[in-house]
C-alpha cells in the first residue's frame, strides 16, 4: 500500500493514494464531480470532458478521470470557468439529444403520466424515455443547473430503433457516444461484440455492418446496458417500468453468487436486475442467466395454494389444513423410510433447518440437496488440505501468473468466474486449458490440451511427470508443508510417456509446455469441474490436480487457488451446515459419537448414527421400498439426474410424497401434497458461494398473487406440529446464531456482522439534486468468507495462508493413473462429448419463451471432417445421435456442423439438457469411490436422416 497523500478539491482536503485519478479520489471521498464517459472499474477514456477541472498552477482544464493525483494538488471543480466549460459541452450534447423535457422548466415536476403542456413530441420527452429517473445525462443536466436557452440548432438523428435482438433494445438516437458500452464489452467482458463506428460527427457505436447482436458474438451479459448512462440501451422486458425500490439480493442460478440489485415496481413486482458494482463476488458483472433469467419470479404459472390430493385429484386447501394433513401422516414414516431433499437455492438457514428436522424430528440421516451429485469435486480437497471448498477468492484469479482450466467450460457454466480469467489472459497471465471441445477459453489459451475422452487422468499424469522431469517441483516447500510425495513420484515414474501421448492424443511437447507454464510461473491457479470426466476417474483427477498444486507450492498464497466449480447456487452452504446424509453441521461425521453427542446436547434430542441415502440413490431406495415417504423441496427438475430421471413415475411407489416447489412439475403431478414455495427473491437468509463467501439477502419482492411460503417456515410449522422442539425461530438471524454455535467455521458469523460489515462506498447525502451515479452506488456488503471462527476474528480470504493445514500437513493422495475403458464398440463407434451452453437452462428460458425474448438455437453436433467422412455425413445434414445407454429409442436430432477442432471419433454437442439430457445421460453403474451415478461421456452412433 503506497502512502496516503493529500489533495484538495474546492478547498476540502482528502486523503488518497498515488496511482489514483482525481475523479476516483473524489468519488471515494464522496465529492461529486460530474462525469459521463468514466465508469467505475473501467479504464478512463477522457472523452466527454464533463469532469474537467482546474488545477492550481497548471495549464488548461484537464479531465479529472484521467488526471493522476499528486501530493498537495489543488483542484477547482465548482468555479464558474470550469462549470461554464461543462455547460458548453452539455449544450452541444443536448443539441443532438431529444431535449424537450431537458429544456423545460417543468422538468422537476412532470410525472410520467402528465400531459405535456408544451406539446413536445413524444420522442423528445424524458418522461416517455425508458431511462427516465435513472438517466445520468438528465441528472447531470440538473446538477449543472443550466439555463437551457441555447442558440445551437437541435437535430434529431432519425436512426431507426434496433429492436430485433433478444433481450434488449438499442435506440442510438439517444446515444451520447460515451463509449462505455464498447469499453465494457471489450475491457470487462473480453467479448468485443459491439464497437465504435464511423468517426467525427457521425461517430457512433454499433456492430459490424450493423448486424444483429446474435451474429456479433454477444453473450447477452447485459454489461453494456448496465453501464449505459442514457436510454440508448435498455432491457426490453418491463422497458418503461420505473423502480419504486431497489433491493440487494443474490442470483440463484449458480454458485458464483453474484450480488444483484433487483428493481421493484410500485406493485411489488420484479422489473429488472442490475449487478452490484461493489460486490466482491461479481464486481458489477453478471451473466445472461442472472441479468435476464430472473423473470420467473413474476410468472403467473407459479403454484399459488397448498393442495392435497383427494380421490386422485389435487384440491386447494388452506395452509393449516395442508400442514395438519402432513403432520398427521409423517410420524408414520419416522426413521429411514422417510427422506428429505432440499434445493440448491435453499438458504443456509433452510438447509440447516431441513437436516435438523430430518434428524431430530424424523430420526433419519436421509437428507441431501438435489444438486449434490458430484461430491468428488471437493472430497479429495477435504482429505488432502482440510476444507471442502475453493481455496482463494474468485477475483484473485487475476493475480495468477498461470491458470489451468480443467474440463470446465467456465465461461458458459460459471460465467462470471470466466471474466477474471479472460481479463488475466488478455494481460500477461498464461492460460492452459484441458478440454476435448473447443470452448470460449480455448481461444484465449496459450496451451490447449485435448485429451481423447476417457484419458483425462492419464493426461494429468503426463503433465505431472513432465513437471518433475523438468525439475519444476518446489522441494523445499514440499519438505516443510507436505507429507512425502514418494508414492506420487513412484506412480509417475511408472508412466510410459510415449504410451501416455499415444493414448491421450496429446504430444509430449504440449504436455511439457503446459507443465513449464504452470511450474515456472510464480503463482498458479487451477479451475476444475468434473461433469464430463468419466465418473470412475473423477476422484483421481482431483487428486492429481491437488498434486499439481502442492508440487508447485501453489497453496496458501495469492494467485494460487484451487477452484472446484460447484453446481447449485448454495451447494457449498448445504455442505457447510450439514445438509448431507453422512455429515453433521460443521462437517463432522454422523458416525463420530463425540460429534453426535455435541449436537444432541445442543438440540436436546437424539441423532441417528447410520449415514443416510444420497440424492443419487434415492430412486433405488424408493423402488426397493426402503423409502416410503418423501418430502422434496424445490427444483423437481433436478431429479432428471442420473437414474432418477429414468423414471420419475417410480416415485408413485411412494406411499406419501410432499412437494414444496414454485412451479408444478413431473413430481408435483404425482405428489400427495403440493405446497407453493417462494423464490429466492422473497426470502431472508444467506447463501455461501463457491469462494466460501457467506452473503446475506433480504426479501425483495412481496408476492400478492400467491400464498407461497419459504422452506424455513414450512419446516418449522411442521416440526412444531409434530412435537419437535427447537424450531421456534422468529428470524433467519436466529437460525444463523445456532449454525454459528455448531459449525466452527461459521463461529463468528452473524447477521449483525454481515450487515454492519457493509460499508458505505459513496456518500449519499449530497445536496439535491443527486446525480444518479451517486444515488445508485450504495452500500458494499462484502459478506464473510469462512472460516471465521469468532465474533472478533477476521474472515479468511485465502485458505491455509495463515493457519496452515487442518490435518497438520498437506496429504498427497497418489492417484492410480489409468484410462477409462476405451474398448471399441462396433455399434457405437464414436464418443459423445457433451457440454452446456449459457443459454440453455431449464425454466428461465421457458418462462421467457412465448414472450419476446427467446434465443432460438438449433441443436447442433460438431464433428471432425474426417469422422464425418467416415460416417458419410456432411455439413448441414440432419442426424440422429443414439448412445449405448439410451432407452426407448430416444435420440437427439441435430444438425451437423463440421469443425476441424473436434478430435476424430468424437461427436460434440452443446446440449446437456432437454431431449438429450432426459434420454441419454443415464448410467446405472454408480461410481465406486463416491457412490453417485455418473453423467458420463458415452459411446454413441450417428445416423443421417433423409
Amino acid at each position, binding site marked *: 500500500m503506497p502512502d496516503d497523500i493529500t489533495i484538495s478539491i474546492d478547498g476540502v482536503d482528502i486523503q488518497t493514494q498515488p496511482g489514483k485519478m482525481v475523479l476516483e479520489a473524489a468519488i471515494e471521498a464522496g465529492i461529486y464531480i460530474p462525469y459521463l464517459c468514466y465508469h467505475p472499474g473501467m479504464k478512463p477514456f477522457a472523452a466527454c470532458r464533463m469532469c474537467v477541472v482546474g488545477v492550481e498552477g497548471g495549464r488548461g482544464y484537464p479531465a479529472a478521470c484521467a488526471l493522476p493525483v499528486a501530493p498537495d494538488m489543488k483542484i477547482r471543480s465548482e468555479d464558474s470557468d470550469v462549470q461554464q466549460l461543462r455547460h458548453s459541452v452539455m449544450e452541444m450534447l443536448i443539441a443532438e439529444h431529444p431535449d424537450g423535457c431537458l429544456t423545460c422548466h417543468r422538468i422537476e415536476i412532470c410525472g410520467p403520466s402528465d400531459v405535456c403542456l408544451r406539446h413536445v413530441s413524444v420522442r423528445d420527452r424524458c418522461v416517455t424515455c425508458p431511462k427516465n429517473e435513472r438517466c445520468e445525462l438528465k441528472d447531470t443536466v440538473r446538477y449543472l443547473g443550466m439555463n437551457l436557452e441555447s442558440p445551437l440548432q437541435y437535430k434529431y438523428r432519425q436512426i431507426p430503433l434496433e429492436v430485433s435482438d433478444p433481450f434488449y433494445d438499442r435506440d442510438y438516437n439517444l446515444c451520447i457516444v460515451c463509449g462505455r458500452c464498447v469499453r465494457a464489452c471489450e475491457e470487462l467482458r473480453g467479448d*468485443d461484440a*459491439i*464497437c465504435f*463506428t*464511423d468517426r467525427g460527427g457521425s461517430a457512433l457505436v454499433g456492430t*459490424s*455492418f450493423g448486424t444483429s447482436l446474435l451474429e456479433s458474438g454477444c453473450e447477452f451479459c447485459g454489461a453494456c446496458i448496465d453501464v449505459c448512462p442514457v436510454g440508448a440501451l435498455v432491457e426490453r422486458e418491463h422497458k418503461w417500468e420505473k423502480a419504486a425500490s431497489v433491493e440487494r439480493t443474490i442470483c440463484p442460478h449458480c454458485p458464483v453468487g453474484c450480488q444483484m440489485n433487483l428493481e421493484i415496481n410500485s406493485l411489488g413486482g420484479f422489473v429488472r436486475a442490475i449487478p452490484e458494482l461493489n460486490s466482491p463476488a461479481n464486481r458489477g458483472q453478471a451473466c445472461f442467466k442472472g441479468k435476464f433469467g430472473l423473470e420467473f419470479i413474476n410468472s403467473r404459472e407459479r403454484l399459488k395454494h397448498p393442495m392435497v390430493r383427494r380421490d386422485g385429484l389435487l384440491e386447494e386447501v388452506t395452509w393449516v389444513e395442508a400442514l395438519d394433513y402432513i403432520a398427521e401422516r409423517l410420524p408414520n414414516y419416522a426413521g429411514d423410510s422417510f427422506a428429505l431433499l432440499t434445493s440448491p437455492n435453499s438458504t443456509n438457514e433452510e438447509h440447516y433447518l431441513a437436516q435438523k428436522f430430518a434428524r431430530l424430528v424424523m430420526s433419519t440421516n436421509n437428507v441431501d440437496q438435489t444438486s449434490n451429485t458430484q461430491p468428488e469435486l471437493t472430497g479429495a480437497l477435504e482429505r488432502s488440505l482440510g476444507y471442502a471448498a475453493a481455496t482463494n477468492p474468485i477475483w484473485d484469479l487475476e493475480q495468477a501468473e498461470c491458470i489451468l482450466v480443467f474440463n470446465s467450460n467456465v465461461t458458459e457454466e460459471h460465467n462470471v468466474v470466466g471474466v477474471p480469467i479472460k481479463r488475466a489472459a488478455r494481460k500477461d497471465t498464461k492460460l492452459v486449458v484441458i478440454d476435448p471441445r473447443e470452448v470460449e477459453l480455448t481461444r484465449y489459451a496459450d496451451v490447449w490440451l485435448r485429451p481423447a475422452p476417457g484419458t483425462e487422468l492419464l493426461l494429468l499424469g503426463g503433465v505431472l511427470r513432465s513437471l518433475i522431469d523438468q525439475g519444476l517441483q518446489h522441494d523445499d516447500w514440499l519438505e516443510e508443508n507436505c507429507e512425502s510425495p514418494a508414492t506420487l513420484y513412484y506412480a509417475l515414474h511408472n508412466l510410459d510417456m510415449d504410451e501416455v501421448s499415444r493414448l491421450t492424443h496429446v504430444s509430449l511437447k504440449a504436455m511439457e509446455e503446459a507443465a513449464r507454464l504452470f511450474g515456472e510461473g510464480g503463482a498458479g491457479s487451477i479451475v476444475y469441474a468434473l461433469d464430463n470426466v468419466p465418473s470412475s476417474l473423477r476422484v483421481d483427477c482431483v487428486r492429481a490436480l491437488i498434486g499439481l498444486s502442492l508440487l508447485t507450492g501453489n497453496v496458501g498464497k495469492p494467485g494460487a487457488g484451487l477452484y472446484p466449480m460447484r453446481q447449485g447456487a448454495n451447494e457449498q452452504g448445504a455442505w457447510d451446515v450439514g445438509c448431507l446424509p453422512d455429515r453433521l453441521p460443521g462437517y463432522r461425521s454422523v458416525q463420530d459419537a463425540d460429534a453426535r453427542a455435541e449436537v444432541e446436547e445442543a438440540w436436546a434430542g437424539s441423532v441417528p448414527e447410520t449415514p443416510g441415502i444420497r440424492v443419487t440413490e434415492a430412486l433405488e431406495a424408493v423402488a426397493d421400498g426402503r423409502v416410503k415417504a418423501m418430502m422434496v423441496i424445490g427444483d423437481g427438475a433436478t431429479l432428471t439426474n442420473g437414474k432418477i430421471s429414468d423414471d420419475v413415475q417410480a416415485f408413485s411407489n411412494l406411499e406419501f410424497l410432499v412437494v414444496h416447489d414454485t412451479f408444478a412439475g413431473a413430481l408435483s403431478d404425482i405428489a400427495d401434497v403440493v405446497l407453493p414455495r417462494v423464490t429466492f427473491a422473497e426470502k431472508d437468509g444467506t447463501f455461501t458461494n463457491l469462494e466460501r463467501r457467506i452473503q446475506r439477502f433480504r426479501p425483495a419482492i412481496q408476492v400478492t398473487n400467491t400464498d407461497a411460503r419459504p422452506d424455513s417456515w414450512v419446516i418449522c410449522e411442521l416440526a412444531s406440529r409434530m412435537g419437535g422442539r427447537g424450531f421456534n425461530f422468529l428470524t433467519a438471524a436466529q437460525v444463523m446464531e445456532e449454525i454459528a454455535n455448531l459449525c466452527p467455521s461459521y463461529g463468528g458469523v452473524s447477521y449483525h456482522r454481515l450487515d454492519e460489515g457493509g460499508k458505505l462506498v459513496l456518500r449519499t447525502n449530497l445536496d439535491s439534486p443527486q446525480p444518479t451515479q451517486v444515488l445508485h452506488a450504495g452500500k458494499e456488503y462484502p459478506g464473510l468468507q469462512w472460516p471465521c471462527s469468532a465474533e472478533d476474528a477476521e474472515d479468511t480470504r485465502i485458505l491455509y495462508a495463515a493457519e496452515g493445514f487442518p490435518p497438520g500437513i498437506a496429504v498427497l493422495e497418489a492417484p492410480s493413473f489409468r484410462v477409462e475403458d476405451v474398448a471399441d464398440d462396433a455399434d457405437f463407434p464414436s464418443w459423445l462429448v457433451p457440454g452446456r451452453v449459457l443459454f440453455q437452462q431449464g425454466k428461465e428460458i421457458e418462462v421467457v419463451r412465448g414472450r419476446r425474448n427467446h434465443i432460438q438455437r438449433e441443436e447442433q453436433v460438431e464433428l471432425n471432417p474426417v469422422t464425418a467422412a467416415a460416417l458419410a455425413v456432411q455439413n448441414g445434414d440432419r442426424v440422429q445421435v443414439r448412445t449405448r445407454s439410451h432407452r426407448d429409442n430416444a435420440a437427439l436430432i441435430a444438425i451437423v456442423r463440421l469443425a476441424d477442432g473436434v478430435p476424430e471419433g468424437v461427436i460434440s454437442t452443446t446440449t446437456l439438457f432437454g431431449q438429450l439430457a432426459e434420454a441419454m445421460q443415464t448410467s446405472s453403474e454408480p461410481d465406486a469411490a463416491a457412490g453417485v451415478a455418473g453423467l458420463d461421456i458415452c459411446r454413441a452412433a450417428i445416423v443421417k436422416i433423409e
Partner: protein
Amino acid sequence: MEGLAQRISQAMLGQEQATITILSTLLAVQDELGYLAKEAIELVAGFTDSTINDVWAVASFYPNFRFEPPCLHQVEVCWGASCHLVGAMPLMEAVMEACELESEGDREDGRLSLRFNTCLGACAHAPVIAIDHHLMGRQTPETARERIGGLLR
C-alpha cells in the same frame, strides 16, 4: 465466392512487413479487391485474432475503405485549402456534373465512382484531381469535364 476468399487470404498472407495489424490487413485486402467484402471482414477478424466488430471499428473509421465492389474508374477531387483557393469548388461542380452524380458515390452503371479527397498531396499543382490514382494538376472545369467524358465514352 471461393475465389474471393482465396484472394483475401492471399492478400492477408502476402503482407511483407513484420508488424501485422487489423489496419494493415484491411489495407492489404482493399488493395487487392478494391473494397472490403463482408467475407473480408470475417476473414480479417480470424486472421488477426479479433472479432468482426473490432475489424469494423477500424474499417468504418478510415474513409478510404469502401464496402462495395469498385467501379471501373475512380475519380477523386481534392477539396483541400490550396485547391479550394484556386478553384476546387467550380471544379467539383463540373466533375459531379460530368460524372452525373450529385455527391460522392458510385454511378449506378458501375462505370465510375467519385470521391472527395482532403488533399491529394500535389498542392503546388492545384487544383488537382486524380483519375484511377493518377494525379492531374492545374485542372479547369473544362479539362476535367473532358477527361471524365473520355472515361464514360
